[in-house]
């Protein structure tokens, strides 16, 4: 009987705890700005066909390089395509690149880094050697090679950038895991008879994740930059598919007469990078349960 009452107490306490956790996020201005910014970008990408005033690929040669007007709020490029529509559709590519790169590099990097850090011995030495080689290899060159080998589709670009970022996540993960491995609760979980895999999955990774998630968020921003860079060089997603990098690249020829084309695409990239960084900082500040302590540790 009493157990049920206490279970209700426990449930009530858990609910209060969740509310407090949500408050912690909503009270962090950087996190909120970052989160709202990302949500806006995602909405724009999802509803691009409805939001864009024109098709991003429809050419209006009569109006090429038009200045901003009611029909073309940001003007047109040299093929007479609506710049605003291209930017709106370009968000799809950028966000896909950011999202999948983070998904792939975070999962692969986390596992590789955690195994390397926890296992130690020759497993660690081998994995660290691979990580170091990949880190030392210029990531742009790696991406170029992959694109050259697989053709410049969106998948190759995502794969190329993900491979370039996985070792970074893995290196961070491993260094964090090295600080977690000697902590007593890891020994405690060995003492209760957990298998090494369970220890890594249940204790090592959850405790190592906060700094890694921060790195991953920030690398989403650099992944978007990398895609833009590749596209700018003509090695990314092929025109006429609109991406921010393509828009900058195509706007380059008219940079003196219509600077708004490249500039607006550049601002889109900058905005995305900034909100992702704000989100990353916000997560860093709020993810750590030790930070939940309200009173200072003065005593």
């Amino acid at each position, binding site marked *: 009987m009493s157990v049920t009452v206490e279970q209700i107490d*426990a449930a009530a306490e858990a609910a209060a705890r969740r509310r407090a956790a949500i408050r912690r996020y909503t009270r962090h201005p950087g996190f909120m700005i970052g989160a709202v910014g990302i949500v806006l970008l995602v909405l724009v990408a999802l509803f691009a066909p409805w939001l864009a005033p024109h098709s991003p690929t429809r050419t209006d040669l009569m109006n090429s390089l038009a200045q901003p007007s009611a029909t073309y709020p940001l003007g047109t490029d040299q093929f007479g395509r609506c710049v605003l529509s291209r930017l709106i559709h370009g968000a799809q590519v950028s966000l896909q690149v950011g999202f999948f790169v983070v998904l792939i590099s975070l999962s692969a990097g986390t596992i590789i880094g955690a195994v390397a850090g926890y296992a130690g011995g020759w497993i660690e030495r081998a994995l660290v050697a691979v990580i170091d080689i990949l880190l030392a290899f210029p990531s742009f060159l790696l991406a170029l090679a992959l694109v050259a080998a697989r053709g410049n589709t969106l998948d190759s670009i995502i794969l190329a950038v993900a491979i370039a970022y996985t070792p970074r996540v893995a290196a961070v993960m491993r260094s964090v895991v090295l600080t977690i491995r000697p902590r007593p609760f890891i020994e405690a979980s060995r003492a209760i008879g957990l298998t090494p895999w369970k220890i890594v999955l249940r204790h090592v990774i959850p405790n190592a994740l906060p700094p890694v998630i921060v790195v991953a968020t920030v690398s989403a921003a650099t992944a978007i930059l990398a895609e833009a860079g590749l596209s700018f060089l003509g090695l990314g997603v092929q025109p006429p598919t609109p991406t921010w990098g393509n828009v900058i690249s195509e706007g380059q020829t008219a940079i003196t007469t219509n600077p708004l084309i490249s500039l607006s695409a550049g601002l889109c990239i900058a905005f995305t990078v900034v909100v992702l960084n704000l989100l990353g900082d916000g997560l860093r500040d709020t993810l750590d*349960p030790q930070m939940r302590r309200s009173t200072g540790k003065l005593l």
Partner: protein
Amino acid sequence: MSALLEVEGLRKRFGGGRALFGAARPEVRAVDGISFTLARGETLGLVGETGSGKSTLGRLVLRLIEPSEGRVRFEGQEVTGVSAAALRAMRPRMQMVFQDPYGSLDPRMTAGAIIAEPMTAHGMARAEAARRVAELLGRVGLSPAMAARYPHEFSGGQRQRIGIARAIALDPALVVLDEPVSALDVSVQAQILNLLAEIQARSGVAFLFIAHDLGVVRHVSDRVAVMYLGRIVEMAPRDALYGAPRHPYTVSLLSAVPRPDPAKERNRPRIRPIGEIGSAAALPSGCRFHPRCPRARIVAARGGETVEAAGARLPRPCVEQDPLLAPAGEAAHLAACHFPDEA
């Protein structure tokens, strides 16, 4: 009846060999030939100073560290030498409580999840484990409603209760307690000691109780082993050891404890400064206590064959022969000293 735990000639060496660029690294003999047995339901107190190897011994017994030599048998089964899977299968029966109540609980898990973990890891259904968690929290004096809280929301004493609940969750036959109360305040220490006594009385679990506080060890132990530089130098039933210590190191330890009695403290003879515990990387020859031993100096002054060592003249056996743990006085009283009968 056979013993619950049998430890034979256990040794652990760390380091040794050569570093990458050829500098020889000193070998540390943290545990250097230890044998003892522990009966069901018994508490063996293990005391010693920092560097005596007592924590290493506790971990070797549970094979959380691989021994370099020697064997451990638990409930008649080999612990040393068996596969990792076989060892995991034995874990439910032998558990550990750690010194650091802050560090030994995963900060990202709730108290309930921490206590449930050993049960689910060894195949108990989640619902059953959850029910047991409520019961275990009650048994260690916490409210079942606290299961949803995270470790940082508990005081040090409460955290240690969670660590104890986790250790007894699977009804073990042996719990190694590594300094379980040394991080706690005096008033909380007593709560935990009483809780442990109560758990033992109810379940008949045996304790290997590692501590540096002689008062605490005396309070909880049936038998006490004193460790010095990787060896047990004296082992005896509690009252024999505290009442009539045979090894000069035990004598020094006991006389150094400040007691809450001003009258006695004021009149106590000053302790002869005996220096500090040496390093297990550079063990003295013969008896490892001889550089600090006050008794060796007294015996030498009385005559007999002596040699020059540690800046004094000491009896030859003390410097040249490693004393074995041998009966001294009563049968169950063992001491590793060449002169166990000196006062």
